[in-house]
């Protein structure tokens, strides 16, 4: 079993994340465990080249129907996912889980409008408030890939619990840190963990809604689980927990270095080109995500080092 998985991973890694061709994601489901498939995205930022395909959505085929995890960055992506799922199984889609409010997790919802789409309350609230703005920004970032995409708010609220579909017991794990509500899903039957927002693998974490302290606690919670295959939200799928360690390392360094620079009197603009340790060089979109993180995290850190003077 373990060997099979490793072999599969090799194949995935060798395959290009995105194939040339006008406006098709060319989605190929890759089996990573029994009944379990993933569409692996690139380790880039949203571009007009990749159409927003940067996430690792997946699905589990159960006797009760297909469980879909994330719907991708556009309606087209959702529709292509659905077509690709149909090449694997003729079972109907039973339920969709959306892990958090970031646009690449749920903008494909329109393709699944006929089935229940479940999310944590905080995710639903966030999509209601910020969904429209995020959608508009995605049109701007990736262009025509988004045609026909409109926000569709998840229709079902879930909390932390264990749900059973056919032979698969899925543990729904509510976390926070990457956003105010991140849903991780552990298939207790196969040991596959869909990290749902908090784990990045060789891809720099994104922080627009982040609380670093809570995020580190969420990583600890995932680290304590028994996992055979870890599907990070972005980046390389792994059979170990190295991605958790890498995410933790990055967040700790980021937080600490910003605090140190603030204490030393740096201005936000001076941080944009600050050096990043060599050990993170292998992570995708490193400098760009670092700069975004400065924008997200700096104002609060800065305030903490400037005392009231009147």
């Amino acid at each position: 079993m373990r060997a099979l998985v490793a072999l599969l991973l090799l194949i995935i890694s060798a395959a290009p994340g995105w194939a040339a061709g006008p406006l098709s994601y060319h989605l190929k489901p890759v089996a990573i465990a029994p009944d379990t498939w993933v569409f692996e995205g690139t380790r880039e930022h949203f571009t007009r080249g990749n159409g927003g395909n940067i996430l690792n959505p997946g699905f589990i085929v159960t006797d009760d129907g297909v469980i879909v995890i994330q719907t991708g960055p556009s309606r087209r992506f959702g529709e292509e996912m659905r077509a690709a799922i149909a090449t694997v199984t003729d079972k109907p889609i039973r339920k969709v889980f959306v892990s958090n409010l970031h646009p690449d997790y749920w903008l494909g919802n329109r393709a699944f409008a006929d089935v229940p789409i479940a999310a944590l309350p905080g995710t639903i609230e966030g999509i209601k408030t910020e969904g429209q703005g995020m959608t508009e920004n995605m049109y701007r970032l990736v262009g025509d890939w988004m045609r026909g995409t409109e926000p569709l708010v998840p229709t079902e609220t879930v909390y932390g619990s264990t749900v059973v579909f056919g032979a698969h017991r899925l543990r729904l794990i509510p976390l926070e840190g990457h956003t105010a509500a991140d849903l991780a899903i552990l298939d207790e039957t196969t040991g596959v963990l869909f990290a749902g927002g908090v784990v990045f693998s060789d891809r720099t974490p994104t922080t627009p809604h982040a609380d670093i302290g809570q995020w580190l606690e969420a990583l600890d919670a995932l680290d304590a689980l028994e996992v055979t295959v870890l599907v990070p939200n972005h980046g390389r799928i792994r059979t170990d927990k190295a991605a958790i360690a890498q995410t933790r390392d990055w967040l700790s360094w980021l937080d600490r270095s910003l605090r140190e620079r603030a204490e030393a009197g740096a201005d936000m603009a001076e941080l944009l080109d600050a050096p990043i340790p060599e050990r993170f060089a292998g992570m995708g979109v490193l400098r760009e995500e670092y700069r975004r993180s400065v924008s997200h995290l700096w104002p609060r850190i800065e305030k903490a080092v400037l005392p009231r003077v009147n």
Partner: protein
Amino acid sequence: MTAFPTRRHLLSFAAAALAAGVLPRRAGARPLDDVVAAGRLMVAVYRDNPPFSHRKGGALVGVDVDIARAIAGRLGVGVEFMELTAGETVSDDLRNAVWRGPVVGGGVADVMMHVPYQKEFGLRNPEAVLFGPYQREGFALARNPMRMTQPMLASLPDEPVGVEIDSIPDFYLLGAFGGRLRDRLVHYMTIPEAVEALVKGDVAAVVATQSQVEAALGDRAAGFPITPVTFPGMMASNWDIGMAVKENSRDLAYAVGDAVTAMLEDGTLPAIFRTHGVTHNAIPVE
């Protein structure tokens, strides 16, 4: 992870189903639908009304604030607060908070907290619906036991007594016993100020609502016994605090009322009061 009570599950599910338009929409303005569709419950709370709603380190905190958050959670929506400066009467407050909005603009809230739940008052304000009483309030006397041995209003010794200005205890004590106490009343802008004066020894007793005096004394209550008091010859000794919505929002009132009932049953409500150092007095079922 803990499993959640079925009731809460059902409530949330119902709210989510409404959001998606799964349940049929009725014609006309339906504020519950509007609330769910907007994903936000706008709640009016009084500004500067400890321990129910006030600012602490910039953050809005208090019993009413926590109850509102819990209600929104059970409806599966977010919550936003509109802080309300108390007008001359609660009828003004109802107008500003739920049915017409303040003259300076800013719109109305979906629900207003801390409204007297009283039939006559309700009849006098047909533009609003009063519902969901969540606390039975009464007056209490906090005293320095060395200076005032008996918690009896009628036998108040010749010592200064603190009250909040323009409060019922103020009016009662100004007029009570032929005005005998009038010259000994010391007026404070807030109950916390009056309670600090009690602790410092400026006054021998403070008369105020039980919740306010409990919260203001906090863990110093051991040294300053708090006793419920009645105002003979003036009014009933207790009254109920509930909520209000605009007259066309009865369905929202039902949903919010159900959430409060559930919170009472599962102990959430008393726990919220406890957090703020206040005794929760449930409304007896009649």
